[in-house]
């Protein structure tokens, strides 16, 4: 072995002393990474700058036409892109606070030992393992206009009427948002439970010595200690909520009158129904960049806030 090493130049050695060894381990993933991560980003930009026709070998270069269309009032692209963007923004604005607040509430209810704690935790986490299509079908049936469970219950309560949830502008958001909270609140609950368990007992003892009541203890001990988790949960939930697709797709199919169509749904409609792949690619870029900016902004906020918490 020593003799081989002495004779051969380093790059031709057949053992670990060859400086290429680390790269050999990286190679399989790197090839796939280039093919399915790096290349598609460049390819997506290329497609958005051409009028892409899947039946043709030669694609016409159109420059930034598809991007300007998104920002020019009057084009269908601008109209629907921004309409669905607003829809998505509304969904984010309502669902994110709910997903943070309800998760924290559940985690607090489960913080101290209680009979059946493991059972409750399992029940609240259970929906998160279901596929979005299953969750969507369940809630479509729950909120069904005629015989859904919700309307069956509403029917029985005096002075309340049944609501055609699935086909009324405005009300159609209710099944989507309720379903989403039911489906994903368990994730944030587990995050909060772990964080609550990590708060040192001494902090609570000190608060009690100072005569702090339940609310004051929460306000001045628990809540600040949870700040990093709250921000982490807020970021991940916001980013996920902006990319909402399955819930409205299954529950309302974007209706009525596109009132629950998310921007992801519109992009896929432009690509796979209208076959305007370049236009859809341009919208993906604009939307993707907006998401990146939000992520970076929230990331900065997080750094600032946790910094303040420590000082």
């Amino acid at each position, binding site marked *: 072995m020593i003799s081989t090493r002495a004779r051969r130049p380093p790059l031709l050695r057949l*053992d670990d002393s060859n*400086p290429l*060894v*680390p*790269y050999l*381990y990286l190679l399989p*993933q*790197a090839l*796939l*990474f280039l093919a*399915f*991560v790096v*290349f*598609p*980003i460049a*390819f*997506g930009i290329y*497609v958005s700058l051409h009028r892409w026709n*899947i039946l043709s070998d030669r694609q016409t270069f159109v420059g930034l036409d598809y991007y300007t269309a998104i920002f020019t009032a009057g084009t269908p692209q601008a109209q629907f892109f921004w309409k669905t963007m607003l829809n998505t923004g509304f969904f984010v604005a309502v669902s994110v606070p709910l997903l943070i607040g309800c998760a924290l509430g559940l985690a607090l*209810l*489960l913080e101290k030992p209680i*009979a*059946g704690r493991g059972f*409750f*935790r399992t*029940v*609240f*986490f*259970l929906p998160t*393992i*279901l*596929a*979005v*299509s*299953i969750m969507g*079908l*369940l809630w479509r*049936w*729950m909120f*069904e206009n*005629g015989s859904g*469970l919700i309307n069956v219950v509403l029917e029985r309560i005096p002075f309340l009427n049944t609501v055609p949830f699935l086909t009324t502008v405005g009300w159609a958001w209710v099944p989507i948002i309720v379903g989403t909270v*039911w489906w994903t609140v368990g994730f944030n609950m*587990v*995050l909060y439970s*772990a964080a609550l368990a990590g708060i040192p007992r001494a902090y609570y003892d000190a608060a009690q010595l100072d005569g702090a*009541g*339940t*609310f004051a203890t929460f306000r001045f001990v628990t809540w600040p200690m949870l700040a990093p*988790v709250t921000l982490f949960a807020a970021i991940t939930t916001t*980013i996920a909520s902006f*990319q909402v697709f399955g819930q409205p*797709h299954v529950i309302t199919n974007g209706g009525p009158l596109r009132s629950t169509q998310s921007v*992801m749904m519109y*992009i896929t409609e432009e*690509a796979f129904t209208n076959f305007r*792949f370049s236009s859809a690619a341009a919208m993906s870029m604009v*939307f*993707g960049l907006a998401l*990146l900016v939000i992520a970076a902004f929230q990331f900065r906020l997080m750094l600032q806030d946790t910094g303040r918490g420590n000082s």
Partner: protein
Amino acid sequence: MATIAGTGRTGVAVGSRRRRMPRGIIRFVTLSLLAMIFLAPIYWMATTSVKSESDTIARPVQWIPEEPTLENYRAIFASPNATFLRWTWNSLFTSVAFSLLSVALGVLTAYPLARMRFPGRQTWFWILLGSMMVPGIIFLIPHYLMMIQLNWIDTYNALIWPGVPGAFGVFLMRQFLVSVPLELEEAARLDGANSLQILVYVLVPFLIAPMAALGLFNFMAAWNNYVWPLFVVHGDMQTLPVAITTFSSRYWTTYGKLMAGTAIASIPVLIAFLVAQPYFIRGMSLTGLKDE
């Protein structure tokens, strides 16, 4: 709330015990009501699936099915366009393949990044890490057009490969590999082990738990994926959860059959979860909250 906080203030050793009782009961009742609300959709699905179609919309509503029947299940299995076994196999095969491949690649790639020194190591690590920030929507259209070029539309390849090089697994495995003591590796090297032997016999035994957790999460992510299979595979090649919605809306417009289909697609996952539940939540804190 205010009254509870108020009584809390009077706390002395004797009073605290009497006080705890009602508070515990309020908490228990609240939790029980919430649990009922959380389980209601699943109960409603299960009972609807064993009602005859006329009973699903009957008034007064049947909280407990009066004449339970398996007719809905028989009907959807007999339905000529429904190939449940095929869809289940598609989901199972592609999710397992995806999960195994990405765990294997994650370990292989994390190894030199965590345990070797070479030029470009930091740069490559930051490139991989940065790729995790890119939102998924950026990839949808180019990936689809690539599948057309590769003739991968309606194939397992389309369901498996595009997600495999995702950097999350690399990042996770690297975090764990960094914490394995160097001495063990050096001892093995003195015994004449080469780098691959060190990985397989020394390091991987330390990674079993995180590898299992990563594998489970990859499997779930692939199984539950919706957007990508919806557009890239069709008909017989569809995955089970997506097929349930697309086919059900087309062929079984009545809710009895729809809920039977939903039950078939979800009950195995629910059972698997209940069996693996302790490992599952622990695995989740392992992957998500390593630093907490």
